[in-house]
């Protein structure tokens, strides 16, 4: 961070405009060319544009990495606390840009240096120390700045010709080492030049209405830098896309959807500006780069937030920082931190920083405090340490801790794989269980099963259309709805076609195959050939973070549970209810059942309806995982048959166990074999398994099964 105060003191005001043009330079090579024209400093530039396909690419390539390393090492020499690479780099580049004004000869090169990711640091400083930069830092940073210029210049020179290779960096380092002190003394004046003052919120915010993301980002950073208490809310609004600007006067506003279109309130004053048509105000779009820096900005602004989750994310954002002030802030927060997870995160951040300490004892302590931490950052930091560490004791400790972490991570990995297997398995079970009724119990080779699933999924879609503002509850409605709709389709199919085909399973195969074609085309023509959107309710998205190494996604979690619920329900229906009894009777001996006065026609219809309904319910679940489209049924029909047959036709337990087994087997093979081969192996396995157990896992017993 030491480079940056200087950037404020020296750089900011004069260089603002230039920075801006430098930024544009990166994105719009056209502009770049123009600017070159103005400056008669074609020196390096043409070459650089010449040799790479995308000009912007070339520009950015030029001064990037080496200068980073340069400053890093350099500031390490000078400064009390070392500068972490990206901060250092930013500082350096910003400065480069600044000095660019002084020395026009290498202007293009330096601008390119500035161009690629310059301005985050501006924000950093602003927030980190609201402008009271101690002079010591200034001079120190200043020298860092100066040498950065050297480095940038030196390197960009190399960069033109060759790729940035180790040797370049080495050269850079050497230079840095040589010239540091000299430069440190040479140009102090920069420090006094500009009175430092963060851009005020009002001025900063205007930039948001611009079209260029670079400008917007600059504006956002200025906002963060302003140290204004409204900043955090503004930035959050920006991040969430609630921030609009009025097209006529480019006034920045909060907007909410309203009857007329949008209800606006001024972003700064908070005064209501009434409603306007949705055309009159435009959302301020943000891109990845902005989101990144926004998140960091917000984090620094919200480290002290009352909400522990906010604090946690803030702390995690800061993991890996070396910035003394940030660390200080963290330590301060740590002392009054109540929430355990946040405390851990903070400790992690602090420890990782301390790994770089000169004092071996401190490093050792840090290593120990990382023991058992599952955060990837911890592993990476330790890994890094192993490479650089000189002190034997620390080295040993680090290795030990790392090994310990690795082993724990491994166990969680296995747990994860099992979960993946289970969830895949339960999807198979869901898809197959309806078939276990229509095919297993009734002996109907129901090729339309997949389409019944599809109908269930489309029902979900329609339900969501019907209740757009209640997405979270839509599934609760969709499940019974899908059951009924698919069930009715099933009954219709049974009454119109299948009932004429009992005892002739192959005819049922042909007929239902025909039906499946019809249903598909029906959906294509009535709804659309395209996939349709089925939204995930909020409670289905995201994942349950058990620890940094193991998290289970909610939708999968729910689906595993759901599959089991469906299974149990079905089991109860078949074992406990009168219908179930009749179903089993009919399936075992139709004639006898009829003789006993079972109205087999009705039972058949209901049974098939039940199977179809379950398929529909499965459709609801699948709509949460995958696309809903006319072809979705095809994707599951074959797997479903595999599961049912593997488990043993006519045996629900078989379907359950079969499905889960195949799922888990598949997932354990995948890492070794890859997805495709895994599936193939599973199929081969089924084929061979059927050789051993010609009637599946749980064969049907008794004479009925013979023949």
């Amino acid at each position, binding site marked *: 961070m030491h480079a940056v105060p200087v950037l404020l003191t020296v750089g900011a005001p004069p260089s603002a405009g230039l920075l801006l043009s430098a930024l544009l330079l990166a994105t719009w090579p056209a502009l770049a060319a123009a600017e070159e024209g103005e400056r008669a400093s074609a020196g390096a530039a043409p070459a650089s544009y010449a040799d790479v396909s995308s000009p912007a690419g070339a520009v950015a390539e030029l001064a990037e990495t080496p200068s980073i390393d340069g400053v890093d090492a350099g500031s390490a020499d000078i400064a009390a606390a070392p500068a972490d690479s990206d901060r250092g780099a930013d500082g350096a580049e910003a400065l480069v840009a600044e000095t660019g004004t002084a020395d026009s000869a290498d202007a293009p090169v330096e601008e390119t240096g500035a161009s690629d990711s310059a301005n985050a640091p501006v924000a950093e400083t602003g927030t980190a120390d609201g402008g009271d930069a101690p002079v010591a830092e200034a001079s120190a940073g200043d020298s860092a700045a100066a040498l950065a210029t050297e480095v940038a210049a030196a390197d960009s020179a190399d960069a033109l010709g060759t790729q940035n290779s180790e040797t370049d960096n080495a050269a850079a380092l050497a230079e840095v080492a040589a010239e540091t002190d000299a430069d440190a003394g040479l140009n102090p004046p920069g420090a006094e030049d500009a009175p430092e003052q963060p851009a005020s919120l009002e001025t900063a915010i205007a930039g948001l209405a611009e079209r260029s993301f670079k400008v917007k980002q600059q504006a956002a950073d200025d906002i963060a830098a302003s140290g204004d208490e409204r900043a955090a809310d503004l930035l959050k609004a920006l991040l969430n896309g609630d921030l609009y600007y009025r097209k006529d006067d480019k006034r920045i506003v909060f907007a909410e959807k309203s009857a007329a279109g949008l209800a606006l309130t001024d972003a700064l004053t908070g005064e209501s500006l009434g409603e306007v048509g949705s055309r009159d105000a435009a959302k301020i779009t943000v891109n990845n780069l902005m989101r990144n820096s926004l998140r960091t900005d917000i984090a620094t602004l919200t480290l002290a937030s009352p909400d522990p989750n906010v604090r946690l994310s803030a702390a995690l954002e800061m993991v890996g920082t070396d910035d003394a002030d940030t660390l200080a802030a963290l330590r301060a927060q740590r002392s009054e931190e109540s929430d355990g997870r946040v405390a851990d995160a903070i400790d992690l951040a602090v420890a990782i920083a301390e790994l770089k300490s000169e004092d071996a004892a401190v490093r050792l302590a840090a290593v120990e405090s990382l023991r058992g931490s599952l955060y990837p950052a911890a592993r990476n930091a330790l890994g890094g340490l192993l490479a650089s560490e000189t002190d034997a004791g620390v080295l040993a400790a680090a290795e030990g801790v790392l090994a310990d972490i690795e082993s724990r991570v491994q166990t969680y990995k296995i747990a994860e794989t099992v979960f993946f297997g289970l969830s895949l398995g339960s999807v198979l079970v869901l898809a197959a269980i309806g078939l276990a009724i229509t095919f297993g119990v009734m002996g109907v080779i129901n090729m339309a099963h997949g389409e019944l699933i599809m109908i269930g999924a489309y029902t979900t879609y329609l339900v969501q259309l019907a209740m757009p503002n209640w997405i979270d509850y839509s599934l609760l409605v969709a499940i019974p709805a899908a059951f009924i709709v698919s069930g009715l389709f099933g009954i219709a199919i049974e009454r119109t076609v299948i009932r004429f085909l009992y005892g002739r*399973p192959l005819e049922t195969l042909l007929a239902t195959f025909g*039906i499946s074609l019809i249903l598909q*085309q029906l959906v294509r023509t009535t709804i659309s050939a395209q996939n349709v959107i089925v939204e995930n309710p909020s409670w289905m998205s995201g994942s349950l973070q058990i620890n940094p190494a193991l998290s289970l996604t909610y939708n999968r979690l729910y689906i595993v549970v759901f599959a089991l619920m469906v299974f149990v329900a079905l089991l109860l229906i078949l074992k406990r209810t009168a219908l179930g009894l009749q179903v089993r009777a009919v399936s075992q001996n139709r004639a006898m059942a009829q003789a006993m006065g079972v109205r087999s026609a009705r039972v058949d219809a209901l049974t098939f309806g039940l199977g179809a309904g379950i398929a529909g319910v499965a459709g609801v679940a699948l709509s949460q995982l995958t696309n809903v489209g006319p072809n979705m049924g095809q994707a599951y029909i074959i797997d479903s048959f595999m599961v049912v*047959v593997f488990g043993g036709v006519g045996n629900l337990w078989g379907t359950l166990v079969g499905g889960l087994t195949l799922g888990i087997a598949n997932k354990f093979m995948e890492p070794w074999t890859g997805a*495709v081969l895994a599936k193939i192996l599973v199929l081969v396995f089924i084929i061979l398994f059927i050789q051993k157990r010609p009637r599946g896992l749980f064969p049907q017993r008794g004479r009925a099964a013979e023949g």
Partner: protein
Amino acid sequence: MGLLTSMRGDTGGQIMLAVLAVVAVVVPILNLAVPESSPWHLSTYTVTLLGKYLTYALLAVAVDLVWGYLGILSLGHGAFFALGGYAMGMYLMRQIGERGVYGDPVLPDFMVFLDWQQLPWFWHGFDMFWFAALMVVLVPGALAFVFGWLAFRSRVTGVYLSIITQALTYALMLAFFRNEMGFGGNNGLTDFKDILGFDLQSDATRIALFLASALALALGYIACRGIVTSRLGRVAVAIRDAEARTRFIGYRVDRVKVAIWTFSAMLAGIAGALYVPQVGIINPGEFSPLNSIELVIWVAIGGRATLYGAVVGAVVVNYGKTYFTGAFPEAWLFALGGLFVLVTLFLPQGIAGLLRMLRRRGGGTDGPKTASGEASA
């Protein structure tokens, strides 16, 4: 044994062969002799189309042999068809030689841009037609033999058998989709130039291929007919109707099954080999389980357990497909799906059954033996 004697008492078959002969004579004339201008001219498009139908017909016969007479519902016969096709495709690929886009004398194009250095072992020999021709029957045959030997010895029957045949073709499909396999992945094998030195695009070659298909169908038909009329054929039907009983009177059921199953697979392979040069591409899609199901449906529509029915079914369904996809591109699936449903509901014996009914009207007594709809499921 005199195969032709087997045609006795098979009116449907005789007529089918007669029609086939007529077509085989008329088509070349209409295509080659009749001038373009004449309304009677038969476009090469149609010839190729008919050629394709004939190979499908042969495939259908192969399926009917195992399903209609042996009671094995194979949902994976497409696999044997495709394997035969690939064997032929590999030969045609090798024939391209330097005319590939990269001009590599040995490697097919797809290997060049996946920059493979030399030919995988299983591609060797396919530059020779006789070898390819041998593989066309051996590869499907061998696969069928191993699969059958396993499955039938351990007495896998009914839907279980059907589903694992499906698993077989499904697994093969996924495998052939993988580019590492060295069969061109999803694109499969295409852009063929010529066969045995004759340009594939020329009308003469197409006619020749068409005639070859017709001949293959005729021979295949007669051979199958020979089997089903032999005592072995009667044993097969016996197995279909009462497997255990057949075993108790001393027949090695598993071996009878393996033998006929393997033969059927070889027929399918030949059909595939004739199919590829006519449509000009073979790719893993041919392995898709849905294809295999569809071809069972041809047989069902034609009339199970009547070989000529299988032929008729294959031609009718595919003609229907060609016609509908052109005539009502939006709605043809309704038509096709509807056809399947209606046939199963109202023509359980398929078209052949319909014909028999007509004959009965005419006072016929002896219908050919047919399966009850029940396969050993």
